[in-house]
């Protein structure tokens, strides 16, 4: 079961080490109104360790949120997957800085990282900076980052079915965050996350 950390409420560990065969599923969530500077380093220190790291930040107003993540593959045969999604509106500023480090001997590493953002206003500032630092040669790594707006065709499709604009926007945001929100197993919390989209 994925461990969920509510940023601004739960203390997010600064550094985690995963030993041989260990598995960690983790979700970081920042609800509207939370400003913070998060720094997290996960070291994959034993073979066949696996990290699934998800993040979600909803920053519709004046929030200032920075997330620094370093995932270090110090030994071979480990897998890390990262998926961070952000909805950024109003005059808030967010930064995602994600580094994947693969040591020289960490062969057969698999490391993936994605950060996707929905920018709701022109005044909002979204920064995303994925970085790869790879010293091994037998690796499978990928990263992707996007900053986009609500899709107009999708919105029109919903409105043509009678769903009013504000509700259509909300469904679009549900759609956008669903892949991360689905990792939150606690139903009450998941509902709380979806409900907070009405503030976005």
């Amino acid at each position, binding site marked *: 079961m994925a461990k969920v950390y509510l940023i601004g409420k739960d203390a997010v560990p600064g550094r985690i080490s995963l030993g041989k065969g260990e598995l960690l599923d983790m979700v970081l969530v920042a609800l509207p109104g939370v400003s913070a500077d998060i720094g997290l380093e996960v070291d994959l220190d034993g073979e066949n360790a696996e990290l699934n790291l998800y993040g979600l930040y909803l920053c519709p107003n004046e929030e200032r949120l920075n997330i620094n993540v370093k995932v270090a593959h110090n030994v071979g045969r480990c897998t890390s997957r990262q998926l961070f999604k952000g909805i950024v509106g109003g005059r808030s500023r967010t930064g995602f800085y994600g580094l994947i480090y693969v040591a020289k001997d960490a062969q057969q590493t698999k490391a993936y990282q994605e950060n996707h953002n929905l920018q709701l206003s022109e005044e909002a500032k979204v920064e995303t900076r994925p970085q790869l630092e790879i010293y091994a040669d037998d690796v499978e790594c990928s990263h992707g980052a996007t900053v986009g707006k609500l899709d107009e065709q999708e919105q029109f499709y*919903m409105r*043509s079915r*009678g769903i009013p*604009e504000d509700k259509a926007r909300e469904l679009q945001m549900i759609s956008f965050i669903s892949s991360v929100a689905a990792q939150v197993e606690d139903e009450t919390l998941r509902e709380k996350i979806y409900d907070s989209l009405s503030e976005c």
Partner: protein
Amino acid sequence: MSEVLLEIKGLHAEVEGKEILKGVDLAIRRGEVHAVMGPNGAGKSTLSAVLTGRPDYTVTAGSVTFAGRDLLTMSPEERSWAGLFLSFQYPIEIPGVSITNFMKAAINARRKAAGQEEMKPAEFLKLMKEKMAFVQMKGEFAKREVNVGFSGGEKKRNEIFQMAMLDPTLAILDETDSGLDVDALKIVAQGVNDLRSPEKAAIIVTHYQKLLEYVVPDVVHVLKEGRIVRTGGRELVDIIEKEGFEKIDG
């Protein structure tokens, strides 16, 4: 003769600064099915988009009246509430939103606009089941994400499913028949034929004649280069089949 449901007069519309519709006139009475045929790029989808209020299409001249109301001043959702429905030529995928939640939002929004309370869950489920059976979709369909991973035929059947759920007064089917096998085509045809009633009407946009064998139109229009160049009865379908669109003009 029955009352005119949709009246389009001198409609001009542009997209990205380019004029596509160059003066369309069309009147549809309640109880009628009209076919709009024409070659690729004629402006058929543009006409569908303008009628349903797609924001990136600009009407530069003309008027459209729907059930006595000025359609062009209404938002897309208001047009839907008023009984207009478009089966999209290219249905949109909405990951993370189930068909159930999508339809619930659509149905309850319309009820809210009409000052009615939300549909009871049991009633909603019953309606879903009935309409899913109608388009021959299995139970799991309700849980699937809207159009995600659907085959071409499934997407079109989903459009017909939504049409049946929303029970529109005027349905516009934009190339709902393209890429369908005969079985799916029959489902689409049945969807339209079931909707046929003295109060309702449909526009079938197509550039094939196949669907029109199953749904026989009362009136056929040929749209070319943004204008309706010919209007006639169902015999026009055969003429088009034999001679193509090239020779047809006003």
